[in-house]
């Protein structure tokens, strides 16, 4: 009996299922190549995927209210490029200040996106597509026509990504702090639950007195904030700032959320899911070169197939569940 309930609990909870998948992935890759499961290799993996992981949190919020944001990597480029140029031209030198500026730029970008979506009723995909062009172009303009800010120009800032605190890289600390905060925010605060409520049933939320427009604005501001933070992280991890960084990367962030069980139509998804989704993607990206035959070239195809399989599996499982529920109905 106990075994059955365990299986039921696993299939009942998406997160548990994802955790098992991640575990299996870890074991498989380690068998093929033991070099994978070393602290250094894992730390590298987390560091290199910090940007996606952090931004998946924002995308979770946006998708929870039934939205989507494809402008995020342009926001990242704009904020990252801005601090890159400020550091290069010696306007600022302090690392915390650089982070603050990047985040502030991100918030302003998110505010613009959120206002257009929540107040002017522009569909999220269209609004963020427009801003994707606009912010990317602004990043380019900030770069003075496509200049880079290389490692030499970044001064102390790039050391952030190589410094360790309590044996863990600072970048990973940022990821940990973000996830800790969002675990608390989404589960334990009223605002967090309001985001879920708006996504689950907007008209009911309106009736129970939740300001739906402001919640929608809020999620895009959160997304912008995290994109700004992502910009700073990106620049420090890769020790360079260029206007076309992370081009197309928004699809990875969305993919992480989708794999993590965040529903496109809103209301369903969790912080744990976003974490597991981005970890699964990161593991695959890291593991692929370690496996013979599959080389890095296969990465995207495999990623795409995984997304497709996950969403199709969802539908099939739901259909089976519905059918079983109907069978059980007494007549």
């Amino acid at each position, binding site marked *: 009996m106990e075994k059955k309930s365990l299986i039921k609990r696993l299939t009942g909870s998406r997160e548990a299922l994802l955790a098992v998948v991640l575990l299996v992935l870890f074991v498989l890759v380690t068998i093929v190549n033991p070099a994978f499961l070393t602290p250094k290799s894992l730390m590298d993996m987390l560091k290199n995927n910090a940007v996606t992981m952090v931004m998946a949190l924002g995308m979770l919020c946006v998708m929870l209210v039934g939205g989507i944001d494809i402008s995020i990597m342009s926001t990242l480029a704009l904020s990252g490029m801005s601090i890159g140029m400020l550091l290069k031209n010696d306007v600022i030198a302090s690392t915390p200040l650089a982070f603050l500026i990047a985040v502030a730029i991100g918030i302003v970008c998110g505010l613009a996106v959120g206002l257009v979506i929540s107040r002017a009723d522009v569909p999220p995909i269209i609004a963020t597509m427009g801003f994707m062009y606009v912010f990317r172009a602004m990043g380019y303009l900030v770069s003075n026509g496509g200049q880079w800010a290389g490692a030499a120009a970044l001064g102390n800032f790039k050391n952030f990504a190589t410094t360790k605190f309590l044996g863990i890289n600072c970048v990973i600390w940022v990821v940990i702090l973000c996830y800790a905060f969002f675990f608390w925010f989404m*589960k334990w605060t009223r605002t967090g639950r309001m985001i879920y409520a708006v996504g689950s049933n907007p008209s*009911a*939320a309106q009736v129970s*007195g939740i300001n739906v427009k402001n919640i929608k604005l809020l999620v895009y501001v959160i997304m912008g904030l995290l994109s700004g933070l992502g910009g700073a992280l990106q620049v420090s991890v890769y020790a360079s700032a260029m206007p076309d960084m992370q081009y197309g990367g928004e699809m990875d962030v969305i993919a992480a959320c989708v794999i993590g069980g965040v529903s496109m139509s809103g209301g369903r998804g969790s912080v744990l899911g976003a974490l597991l989704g981005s970890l699964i993607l990161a593991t695959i990206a890291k593991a692929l070169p370690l496996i013979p035959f599959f080389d890095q070239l296969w990465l995207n195809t495999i990623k795409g197939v995984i997304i497709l399989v996950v969403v199709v599996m969802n539908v099939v499982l739901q259909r089976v569940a519905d059918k079983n529920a109907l069978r059980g109905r007494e*007549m």
Partner: protein
Amino acid sequence: MSEYVLELKGITKIFPGVKALNNVQFQLKPGEVHALMGENGAGKSTFIKVITGVHKAEEGEMFLNGQKVDFKGPKDAQAAGIAAVYQHPTSYPHLTVAENIFMGHEIIKNRMIQWKAMNTEANKLLAQLDADFDATAEMGTLSVAQQQMVEIAKAMSTNAKIIILDEPTAALTRSESEKLYTLVDKLKEEGVSIIFISHRFEDMYRLASRVTVFRDSQYIGTYDVNGITNADLIKAMVGREITDLFPKPEVKLGEEMLRVEKLSRVGYFKDVSFGVRAGEILGLTGLVGAGRTEVVEAVCGITRPDSGKVYLEGKEAHIKQPSDAMEKGIILLPEDRQKEGLIMSWGLGRNVTLPTISKYAKNGLNDEKTERDLAKKLLEEVDTKAVDIFQPASSLSGGNQQKVVVAKALSQEMKVVIMDEPTKGVDVGAKAEIYAIMGDLAKKGYAIILISSEMPEILGMADRIVVMCNGRKTGELGREEATQERILELAMEKSSGKGASK
């Protein structure tokens, strides 16, 4: 203290083009269960929304314990101790039961949601209601009856002094209804005043002490439940002798057009068989959720049945999708005009010709002239009150929208017309017109299936009545043998105890 906990005077509510409420009044005594009755479209739902602050009335006053109140929004009404449980639960399907109960007034300490406290509180409330589920269950996984219980728990959690129940028993089985009755009794004992909207006389007799009747957006009267007969109440609700509403023509019945045999779809209906002849109106009735709509949807190819056969004029018909059914001459006029029947933003003409555009197209291109002429002819034939064929369907009243839906069916040669609740949300005048059209169609030799929950309509129009209950056909009555009581008996048969077998 005033005699009434809640009193409304001279309430008028106007929607663009319609007076939804016209100078109505209402009084609620402390600790009473007060039934509010009336036909569909009589203005009951609008009235409830005025009380709960969702709609603002153009005219009229509202008094709470003798104090004049003016609600700006639903929050004000909530704060004043008024809670409503709607027919279709307005819940958050992805959240837990506890969250649904406490949405908007969560238990918060140090800006943190107290999950444990909330779950315990919620479980306490659920225990009072004899609920068979836990507060941590996900709302979307519960049955409608269970969701309704959550809504009632929600009303209780706000310490509401006035609770409004909008057709709470419509989707419930007999035993679930019994449970609800005891629940209402319990609330009454605790001093809560209850407004109870229902179509079921049974509910009213069991629970209410007084009943107020609305008709055509107007207040008709308030009566003591013990002092009024069934017939008088129906007369108050319908407003005229039933007979002159239904111009049922005497039609000589022709060949059997449609025959359904042992149709089943897992979870929806099982082994349903019936037939309908040319010129005949077959009534299909039962309580909401009995599977009536699901059966005809399967006949018309909107869903696929798991087993069973459909014969058209004696030949087996293989219908896989709605277009197959239409080609063979069967059309369904769906219940939900706004979602399934019409494209509300489109002009009337295009709505009428949508099913048949390809028939008068030349080389795949639309012949708009023919189309316009046909639309005009059909819309005039059903006597639509419209200015031109280009005005959007949303600009018409419910009754006229229904006529446009009927015109859609006439745009092609049909043999069987299935009408699902054709008079839902239609005012009395337009109802009579729709009945007249129905009669005309029968005279012309169409076979008609009329699905309806309204007893007078079924009794007045149908030649034969098929009653369904819980997915099964429970009986078939001829026009002569059919009575309200007989139909109700068949429609509620499941409660006789044999339903529980698996």
